[in-house]
């Protein structure tokens, strides 16, 4: 049962793909928290620059294009477009480094 030769799925078989197909409720909660944290940073930057009367192209573009956490659909918060997946969606946790990159939009038409 224990020890180096115990039978586990990954030891007795070859490759085992054990990333679950969907996020757990706590993962979803933390994902929302991270989305809000990014929104918070963008808001801080925009307020600070507005006080000084300066503008920033990347900031303006982000504000124009990206939805905030509250505006996003659950579908976009927890899944993303994948051209190879059935029905063109896969869990966002399949994205490499998904907790540290922004993925909010879909390609046009999806």
């Amino acid at each position, binding site marked *: 049962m224990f020890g180096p030769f115990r039978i586990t799925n990954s030891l007795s078989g070859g490759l085992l793909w054990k990333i679950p197909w969907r996020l757990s409720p706590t993962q979803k909660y933390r994902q929302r928290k991270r989305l809000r944290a990014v929104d918070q*940073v963008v808001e*801080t*930057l925009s307020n600070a*620059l507005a006080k000084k009367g*300066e*503008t920033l192209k*990347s900031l303006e573009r*982000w504000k124009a294009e990206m939805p905030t956490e509250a505006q996003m659909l659950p579908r976009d918060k927890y899944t993303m477009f994948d051209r190879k997946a059935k029905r063109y969606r896969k869990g966002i946790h399949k994205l490499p*480094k998904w907790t*540290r990159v922004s993925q909010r939009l879909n390609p046009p038409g999806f």
Partner: protein
Amino acid sequence: MSYFRITLHRSAIGLPKRTRGVLAALGLHRRGQLVFHPVSAQFAGMIMKVKELVKVEEVDRPLTKREVHEQRRPDPGFWVESVGSFERQRQHLEGGKGGEAGAEGEVRL
């Protein structure tokens, strides 16, 4: 003049070289590190590049290293009372009107 108070919250391990370069340019080398930069479009652009990794606040002035250290110091849980300081405080409050009496009291201590 206001400043961005930037804390590196998430590590940049495994992220592109450019992202790590931006962090290095901001002076952030380890997680939890705190730096201050003046509010300007230039620094805002750099923060935009690493917005998923940092926590940002706008503050009036940058804290010195010592002040940051003092803020991080935990509450010792005790304080030392001394009779002398208590007496001095009392006489300071009383001796507002009678200058000489207060001076005498201080000599006695």
